[in-house]
């Protein structure tokens, strides 16, 4: 084998030996696999990747990878990742989480992370339910979904993450399906490669509390049109699609955010002067 033909890292090199807490059949197993496949495709050494998350079933992913990880508090994965990326721009930063973590308790950070456009990839495994707490409605749950916490349904219209991401300034928007791990791996790899804030919403069934989501494999389909960089066209498509279009749906070329860097560094002692009488 020559050096060219032997990639340094295979997907398994990005997996840890920790056994996931997920239920058998959970879509998140496939998403984990897609993440590691994407990293293998990019050939980024595991120690140069940080996977950051909040709380929830899908937020358990960092420890299941062989990358650096931070499993933070509920809803705050994005600011945690932003602090890391702006101070360590050399790292590849991936944020993972669920719909409750990202769109409900962390909703404000979602808006501002899209606006800020720091170079990172945000993967949301959307199963339209709080699984870890055993079946409560999330922001993406249908208004008439029956649950113990909200009998009769929430009667609130579902949150539209892709539309919100577009309106807030995300630089890359895609939708994947956990039942298509290779396709999702491609989306994730492309999202990581794309500069700025890349948002990948992955439909990832909760077979325990939303068994009807097993049917998603029949409902998802590749988007019938090419990705657009036209914000107006994307707005119409994302606001009116059936929620099951997969693929890259929008991309932009806004410059990623980085705080200012001063080329002429000075010593802290220089600041003493401004106070001297």
């Amino acid at each position, binding site marked *: 084998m020559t050096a060219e033909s032997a990639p340094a890292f295979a997907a398994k090199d990005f997996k840890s030996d*920790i056994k996931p807490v997920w239920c058998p059949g959970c879509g998140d197993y496939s998403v984990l696999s897609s993440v590691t496949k994407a990293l293998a495709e990019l050939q980024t*050494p*595991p*120690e*140069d990747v*940080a*996977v*950051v998350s909040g709380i929830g079933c899908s937020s358990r992913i*960092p*420890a299941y990878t*062989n*990358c*650096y*990880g*931070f*499993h*933070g*508090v509920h*809803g*705050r994965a*994005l*600011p*945690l*990742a*932003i*602090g*890391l*990326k*702006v*101070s*360590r721009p*050399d*790292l590849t930063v991936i944020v993972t989480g669920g719909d409750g973590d990202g769109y409900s308790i962390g909703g*404000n*950070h979602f*808006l*501002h992370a899209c606006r800020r456009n720091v170079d990172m990839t945000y993967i949301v495994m959307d199963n339209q339910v709080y699984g870890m707490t055993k079946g409560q409605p999330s922001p993406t749950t249908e208004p008439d979904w029956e649950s113990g916490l909200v009998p009769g349904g929430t009667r609130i219209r579902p949150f539209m993450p892709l539309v919100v991401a577009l309106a807030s300034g995300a630089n890359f928007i895609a939708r994947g399906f956990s039942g298509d791990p290779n396709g999702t791996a491609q989306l994730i790899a492309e999202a990581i490669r794309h500069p700025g804030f890349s948002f990948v919403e992955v439909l990832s069934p909760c077979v325990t509390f939303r068994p009807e989501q097993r049917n998603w494999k029949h409902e998802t389909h590749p988007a019938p049109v090419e990705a657009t960089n036209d914000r107006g066209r994307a707005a119409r498509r994302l606001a009116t699609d059936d929620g099951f279009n997969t693929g890259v749906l929008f991309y932009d070329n806004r410059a990623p955010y980085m*705080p*200012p*860097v*001063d080329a*002429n*560094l*000075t*010593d*802290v*002692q*220089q*600041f*003493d002067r401004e*106070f*001297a*009488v």
Partner: protein
Amino acid sequence: MNTSDPAAQAAETITVALVGSGGSGVMTAGDFLLRAASKAGWYGMMTRSSGPQIRGGEAAAYVTLSSRPVDAPSDRFDMLYAIDWKNAERFSAEIPLDTASLIVSGEAGATVPDAFTKGGARIAELDVKALLKDVSGGRPNMLALGVVCTLMGIQPDAVEDVLESRLGKKGAMAIESSTAAAELGAKCARDLPSFPKLSTPAQNGPEHWVITGNQAAGLGALRGGIRFVAAYPITPATEILEWMSPRLPKVGGNLVQAEDELASINMAIGASYGGTPSLTATSGPGLALMTESIGLAIASETPVVVVDVMRGGPSTGIPTKSEQGDLNLAVFGLHGDAPHVVVAPTSISDCVFTTQWAVHLAESMQTAAIVLSDQALGQTISVIDKPADIAFATRRLVADTVDESYNRYALTGTGVSPMSLPGTPGGQYTADGLEHNPRGTPSSTAEDHAAQMEKRLQKIVEFDYGSHWADIDGDGDVAVVTWGSMTGPVREAARRVDPDGSKVRVVSLRLLAPAKPEWLAEALDGVERTLVVEQTHSAQFYHYLYSHFGLDTNAEPFHRPGPLPLRPAELEAKIREWTRQ
């Protein structure tokens, strides 16, 4: 200086209040007065008071000048200079006047409100409008500056020096018209009633600085090595962030404005996880929002510094005034058993040291350190001796090279374990708020929980805090135990009762958590009576000392909420009574 003829002798300390309505420029005049006095060698401090308006509205500048360091608000005012009297009564409780005080009214024909005259102060009037008629661009606040400086004996060249350096950006015209107005004020001062002159300041002393506590905290943070700051604006902490923002890039760091305090604390933790010493600054409402994530920093052993510049609470409270009511929140506000560090600066000058020390503690112990400053320290401008430049050997214990046996949360015997930074091959781990085993893998076993809890506690309890845990002055069988901005008034009161420090012991705690009862007991050895001084309504500090420091049962709390400062005279009376017995 309560004498029958106030001008008969030079005064060591003089305090002046400047008041005026929105746009009258009292803050500028107060600032220039302080700076002019500093140029001429005096010490001093200036506090600001204003109405609730965002911009404009009545304002008051309280300036104390002295030939020795000033660390407490004055008991009384020697002069009240009003540019006008619109809504000035709002400040009357803050400006105690007596028969030796002089009121100068800059508004011809106006009636001085009873609230100010009831103490019997002398009143003089200047027809400022008429006086400034022929001074093009001359403003009443600059005339006031000339009047006040001349009455106190501050040399005209010091005033000119300040006008030139502070107004330089506004151009020659601004300097010229301000100088003309100040000179006119100086002329008017000669016709005003007699007033004491400041006693000559010591020459050849240490270099003096003009600085606020918030700037000092920012400087201490940079000295300590902070290179990432996440910021969300909040009164009265914003100036720390604004001071640091343009300076961080000059030392290779940066500041990010966050969308809220939940984001700012998490950004700081994220940056610190990457290896950059990180800080955020806030006030009580922000600290309340941050407490969940401070717990994350503690559990994941990621160093972070949070500065809380306290204001009146609860809830939105009194954002522009000082209070020490966040003590309980800072010490006890975290969920679960979450050992961490809480420190408090003992003066404006000490904001440099204590913030720098907080960085050292957080980095050395890989934990969260909360700095409890307050509005009185943070927003007061003070002329101080240049703070000492102290170099801590601040080093985070980092795993530079790792092998297969590497465990991020290894039980090392000290509680501190080497932290591998992202980018280090083989050092990969997941920092986690979940309880974990030494490797970092989530664990809910009793054994791992006990071991990691003990690790996180041990490193904080056994750390060598040196002598920095408290400032201890004087000796004797009466002790005053205090903290934060109350230290200044306590020290001033003790000095008055006991100038040579043989009767009164002042203990100001810099290290509030972890509690060190044995050190306090040693500091209070031989003491018969202890007074506990703080600015809270519920005596939080007293109760904390009682419950966690084994404070003597006959110790007595001396406490009051903000917004009025505790003045040295109140404490002096109490201490005098005790030392007589």
